[in-house]
């Protein structure tokens, strides 16, 4: 029985999932909360982006269940995640050094001793990448066949999923089952099933083809120490998600409480809170992060004994980075909430509650906080992509996540020196680029729709 290991970011991430589930149940019963979300999911753009986001989140969550691989306490073994065990071949097929995507040989020539004792300078064959090939000329055919198998599996899986969805929908009165596949003319008020279907097909294709191919080849090449780049890029998803979501989760309580309090109480409370956020805001964000991370480094170096393993240490640093990013980014939300609370406190129902002698705390909780939630939600969604992008910059300045943590920023940072090589090692950088671009673009498109659906100023237009 493997021993589970709960990292701090794991716990917080699952807490966030729990909160989301609770919120969905809560919002499902209330019409004013349900309607904007229905508007979101009637947009094809949002559903398409949502499928991509969902895939990323699924991988990130699978990567957030950690345990020690060793069976007995004497030999604890390394810390793995559930996702690691699912992609064991990717993790374990380590080459010696760089190799290009789909390569069968190393990137650089090496001296190799042949069986008869003579040495030659050749590109040595990879240990795993394309090792099953006896004749190198067959590579192209082999890749084609493997791709075709993957595509076939994807189509079968897709037909099953879409068929099941279609059967489930048959029970409800609705349009023809073909609307699963094509847009109908009256689709403005319905969930865009056809977008979901086609996006799922693309997704299954990508997953199954790359899964089939990556068993035989390094589809995105290997890095300096021979680790599979595809594996690194997949592992980086969790880091990106943690930074993008936990940062806002960490800062939300302070931002909501202080913002609403400043707007509701006014007077000296307002002055103090305004002073607090103006001061924090006036420190350049990057410098505050740099200063804090530098201090954390010194602290960790001096108290190295407090961390039992490197993964716990790296996790602590990731969490701390979230907190620091949160400290630098709550001020904007706080200011907006203060402005909104200033307006709401003058409304009749708040005035009436005051006249009835309801306590200030209850008024804030029952009347103010629920009515500023749309601003909170828009901010959370809009901030996500910015935070994912910020990680790359922070990694470049060496104040990002721990160098041992897989992240797109670390990949870019180590890859930028490889660009100077001849022929250039382009695959690490490209892999990080593609993954990051996909996540951020999906998040940006999704957040646009969410903002339009929740922003009361825009509601009149639609």
């Amino acid at each position, binding site marked *: 029985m493997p021993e589970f290991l709960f990292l701090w970011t794991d716990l917080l991430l699952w807490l966030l999932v729990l909160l989301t589930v609770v919120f969905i149940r809560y919002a499902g019963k209330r019409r004013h909360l349900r309607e904007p979300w229905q508007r979101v999911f009637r947009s094809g753009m949002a559903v398409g982006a949502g499928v991509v986001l969902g895939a990323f989140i699924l991988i990130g969550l699978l990567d957030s269940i950690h345990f020690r691989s060793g069976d007995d306490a004497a030999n604890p073994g390394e810390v793995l995640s559930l996702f690691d065990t699912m992609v064991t071949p990717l993790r374990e097929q380590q080459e010696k050094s760089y190799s290009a995507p789909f390569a069968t040989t190393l990137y650089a020539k090496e001296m190799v001793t042949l069986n008869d004792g003579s040495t030659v300078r050749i590109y040595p064959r990879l240990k795993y990448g394309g090792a099953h090939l006896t004749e190198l000329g067959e590579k192209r055919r082999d890749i084609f066949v493997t791709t075709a198998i993957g595509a076939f599996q994807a189509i079968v899986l897709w037909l099953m999923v879409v068929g099941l969805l279609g059967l489930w929908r048959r029970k409800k009165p609705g349009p023809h089952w073909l609307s699963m596949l094509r847009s109908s003319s009256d689709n403005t008020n319905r969930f865009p099933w056809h977008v979901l279907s086609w996006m799922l097909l693309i997704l299954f294709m990508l997953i199954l083809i790359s899964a089939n191919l990556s068993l035989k080849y390094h589809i995105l090449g290997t890095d300096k120490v021979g680790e599979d780049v595809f594996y690194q890029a997949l592992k980086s998803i969790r880091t990106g998600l943690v930074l993008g979501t936990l940062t806002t989760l960490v800062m939300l309580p302070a931002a909501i409480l202080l913002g609403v309090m400043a707007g509701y109480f006014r007077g000296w409370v307002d002055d103090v809170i305004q*002073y607090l956020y*103006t*001061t*924090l*805001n*006036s*420190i*350049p964000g*990057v*410098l*505050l992060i*740099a*200063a*804090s991370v*530098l*201090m954390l480094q*010194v*602290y960790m*170096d*001096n108290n190295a004994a407090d961390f039992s393993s490197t993964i716990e240490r790296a996790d602590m640093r990731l969490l701390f980075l979230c907190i620091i990013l949160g400290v630098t980014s709550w001020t904007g939300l706080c200011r907006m909430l203060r402005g909104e609370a200033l307006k709401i406190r003058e409304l009749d129902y708040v005035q009436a509650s005051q006249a009835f002698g309801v306590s200030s705390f209850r008024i804030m909780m029952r009347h103010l906080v629920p009515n500023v939630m749309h601003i909170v939600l828009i901010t959370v969604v809009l901030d996500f*992509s910015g935070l994912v*992008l910020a990680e*790359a*910059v922070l990694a*470049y*300045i*060496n*104040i990002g996540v721990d160098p041992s943590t897989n992240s*797109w*920023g670390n990949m*870019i940072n180590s890859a*930028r020196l490889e*660009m100077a090589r001849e022929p250039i090692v382009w695959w690490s*950088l490209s892999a990080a*680029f593609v993954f*990051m*671009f996909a996540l*951020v*673009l999906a998040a*940006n*498109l999704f957040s*646009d729709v969410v903002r339009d659906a929740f922003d009361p100023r825009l509601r009149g237009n639609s």
Partner: protein
Amino acid sequence: MMAYIIRRLLYAIPILIGVNLITFVLFFTVNTPDDMARMHLGMKRVTPEAIEKWKQERHYDKPLVYNKSTDGFAKLTDTIFAQKSLALFAFRFGSSDNGRDIGHDIRQRMWPSLAIAVPVLVMGMLLYISLALLLVFFRATYVDTWGVVLAVMMMSISSMFYIIGGQFLIGKFLHLVPISGFDTGDAWKFLILPVIIGVVGGIGGATRFYRTLFLEEIHRDYVRSARARGLSEMRVMFVHVLKNAMIPILTGVVAALPLLFMGSLVTESFFGIPGLGSYTIDAINSQDFAIVRAMVFLGSVLYIIGLILTDISYTIVDPRVRLQ
């Protein structure tokens, strides 16, 4: 007006004291000067004498806030807090941990930073505003839709890729300009690539932002009356709408003006330009806390100046706003 500015300047003092306190707590109490000395000298096998010597050379050997060993006023002034933190108020930055005069470095290094930041700002503004106006001009057509999609896609690309990709494409692949370095003689050669990348990197976000500003204006009454008077759509857009939308745009730019001195962290260090941005990055990488402290303070001062300038520029461009 004058009274307002003076009051705002006075209000800046408690904020700067707050910034000062935060940096002081971060740099001197979370980790004591002993910790920092140990880190600079190498973690292991550091003798207490070496630590003392390191601290003495950099004047970190004083008590933090209260010096019992001296008399009178010196009890408060002969401390790390007074010497290292409060001295920043007089813009006495002192010397960095490796002994260079920070004030001198800053004065020298702010010019290359400006040489990049100002062209990026000016060219960027012109480009972004024209693009945004074009999108609004073609609103509710395919040009607008695809323009916005393109803008969102450009927004989704990390700034690191613009820099690495641009450096690779223009500098290395096409061999048009040197990929990095700086020389005061023909500086433009070294500046052109970072400026282009700076401008291109901002297209997505800025164009979309300005487009929203213009779209908000386009439904106003004055636009309708201008159209009713028979003005061409071109004239309405580029004269009337542009003029009114300039208020939020200008004030936003004014807020950013002082911070131009700080330079761009990543761009400068990537292209080896000796500005304040790369200065900061070098300081962070070599863990030179004296420089980081000075830059934090300088950044806050410039930010507050930016806030005050914003308020003043509001009264100038929008006569409806009165400061009191």
